[in-house]
């Protein structure tokens, strides 16, 4: 049975975990293709006008998946850390999506406090739209006969009855997540990290063995698993880079031959890593010879330490990471540790970013070359890349003049 995973929103954090979970539960995970024009247009049509682009894109992915999936996994990540929230829109996501999918049941991955689900269920009743009003009438092709909009028991046979199977699936999700975040922390971008993690699957025994030997720090699968154990990363990424231990792992440099500038990027993962939504900012910067640092590459303890002294803790996880990472990048720039500029990528009309972005702007704009990019469905590649080129000139110029 095929369960779709939309390649949007927090897929860039939890995609591998979702995939591993569904596989271990005996289902076939199907990830939607990378965002393209058709997906985005479908989302734009179906969603409310004023909502942010990433949510529209998510809806587009769901509409795409309903063509060939028996169910769609829709996360309701109320919070992924204690006393924090993700975003109000994420909480309403299943309810916004299910009304647009009249025939495909949604499997709600409901979590609060940690990304692992507290509850996995399907809301009863069909979507409220009638058949002829469905935004995609062709979408009925793959609906399997045996599935009704009942509850989770019908979606995942045996998962609610057999506790052991659920446990196994959750363990698999946790492990996949640990490996994936470990790779991100080593400086891989999500796309690469997922490819590597996929390659690792199939030889879990060897991986487990290697994890136990502390000496083989150079070996990639080993470090992936070791570092990934949630905040086990003792070595600072920038430190590694500064000592020249593993420069190729800090950011990824494909085309540039000169050492290149290091650009810190902050923003929500779906703005940074969805290369269609952000018109390929990351690739463009890499091709310009830049090394990239993102919040996901920084150890979380460091980010939290950088936020000490805030009068009130930020209660949006992604906002906290963005502000903390921007402060770290700024500190690295001050210490000549090699961050030449900071780019803040946010979605137009994003609620939390409106406030957090203001704080970042006020803190950073006088200390480090800083660029704020707002993405919406009208964002054009040429305009954005011109701005980036100008920004890179500024970042490089400052470096030459020794201002930073």
């Amino acid at each position, binding site marked *: 049975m095929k369960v779709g995973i939309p390649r949007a929103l927090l897929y860039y954090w939890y995609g591998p975990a979702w995939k591993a979970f569904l596989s271990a539960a005996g289902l076939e995970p199907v990830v939607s293709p990378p965002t393209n024009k058709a997906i985005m247009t479908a989302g734009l049509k179906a969603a409310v006008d004023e909502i942010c682009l990433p949510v529209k894109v998510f809806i587009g992915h769901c509409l795409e998946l309903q063509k060939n999936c028996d169910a769609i996994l829709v996360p309701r990540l109320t919070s992924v850390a204690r006393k924090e929230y993700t975003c*109000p829109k994420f909480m*309403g996501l299943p309810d916004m999506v299910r*009304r647009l999918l009249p025939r495909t049941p949604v499997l709600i991955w409901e979590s609060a406090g940690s990304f692992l689900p507290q509850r996995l269920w399907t809301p009863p009743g069909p979507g409220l739209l009638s058949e002829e009003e469905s935004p995609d009438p062709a979408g009925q092709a793959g609906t399997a006969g045996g599935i009704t909009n009942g509850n989770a028991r019908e979606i995942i046979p045996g998962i609610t009855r057999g506790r052991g199977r659920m446990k196994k699936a959750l363990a698999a999700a946790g492990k996949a997540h640990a490996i994936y975040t470990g790779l991100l922390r080593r400086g891989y971008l999500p796309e690469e990290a997922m490819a590597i993690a996929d390659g690792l699957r199939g030889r879990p025994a060897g991986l487990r063995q290697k994890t136990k030997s502390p000496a083989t720090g150079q070996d990639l699968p080993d470090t992936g698993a070791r570092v990934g154990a949630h905040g086990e990363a003792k070595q600072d990424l920038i430190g590694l880079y500064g000592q020249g231990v593993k420069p190729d792992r800090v950011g990824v440099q494909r085309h540039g031959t000169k050492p290149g500038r290091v650009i810190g990027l902050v923003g929500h993962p779906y703005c940074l890593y969805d290369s269609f939504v952000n018109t390929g900012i990351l690739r463009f910067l890499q091709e310009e010879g830049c090394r990239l640092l993102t919040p996901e590459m920084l150890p979380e303890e460091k980010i939290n330490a950088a936020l000490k002294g805030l009068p009130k803790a930020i209660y949006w996880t992604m906002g906290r990471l963005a502000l903390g990472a921007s402060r770290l990048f700024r500190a690295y720039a001050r210490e000549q540790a090699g961050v030449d500029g900071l780019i803040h990528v946010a979605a137009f009309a*994003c*609620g939390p970013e409106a406030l957090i972005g203001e704080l970042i702007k006020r803190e950073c704009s006088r200390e480090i070359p800083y660029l704020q990019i707002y993405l919406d469905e009208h964002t054009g590649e040429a305009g954005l890349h011109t701005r980036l080129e100008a920004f890179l000139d500024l970042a490089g110029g400052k470096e030459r003049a020794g201002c930073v």
Partner: protein
Amino acid sequence: MRLTFPRMGQIDIPVKTLFTELGHEVVAPPPVTKRTFDLGVKYAPEFACLPFKMTLANYIEAIEKGAEAVVTFGGAGPCRFGYFAQVQRRILHDLGYDFELFLLDPPGAETRELLRGLRFLFRENLKAPGRIWQAFRLAWAKAVFLDRANQLYRRLLPRVAQKKAAEMEYRKFLRVMAAERDLSRLELVYTALAHNLENLARLETGRVLRVKIVGEIYMILESGVNFDTENILGQMGVEVIRSVSMTHWVEANLLKALFPGHRRRTGLLSTPHLTSFVGGHGRETIAETVDAGINRVDGVVQILPFTCMPELVAQSILPDLSRRFNLPVLSLVLDEHSGAAGVMTRLEAFVDLLREKREKDMAKAGVGGEARNPTGSG
């Protein structure tokens, strides 16, 4: 130390009373004007919601008038309201305004900050808890009577021929209410208003259209930013009902433990359509629209500020409710670029639609159409 606070509808009357009775000097922010908009838009982040911009401007205008401290509420998310004060403090600090911020966060979020704020508010009366109690009682009674009067005014305005006279009565009531310090006289003030308004009302008026207003609380209550939507509708002969009010907010948020019914009602009504809370008033919007549908209200107007996250979730779901209950819904997304004429036109068109729909419904129901909702007639 002269205190100020953010403005929202008539909240300045009870809040000013409370602070004055507690022995503080109060500088209330002036009503929303063009300048308030200009200040807010100039200094606030572009995508912040209108409440953020307007409260920021409130502080600036109050500080210019001599306020030295700001008292405001916080929150623990996920709505942006809980983080307003932090960003506003930073912005005002960068602008060079000097003031002290007292943040009344809900217990559990920043308890230390809450205690500091309370200690400051009560510092004149720490030895006399009786006076604190008196102050709260007076302020709460005023809030209750203000809400009651507002409800009465909304119900009677469409049934009054001399709308100007009714408005004058209401304004007079607000003035008297603001100045009154005697708890026992509040009821008299209210009864006088009720008496005068009822005298103006023509009871022979037939069944008037009823429209429910739902949405974000600041945008609903602050007539300066919603172009006085309620009044416009009332002048058009439409009765406006709403459950969002300042006493409701206090009961549902600050006195949650004493009034569990609000949350239960919201949860029960909204769950089939929105299965989790989404912060702000998102879930209330869904619940109250369902309530409007069940009770055969003629239409629903949702008022929300541009970029409001919880209301956008609600707005995404409202079309289903509209279809299900055969209930026209108008979503007014307002920001600093909205114009009075545009809002007016949309409201007029909406009311026309409601009138026509009711006539059609009545024709369909035959002669008995009038009796469809007997309690609704004035």
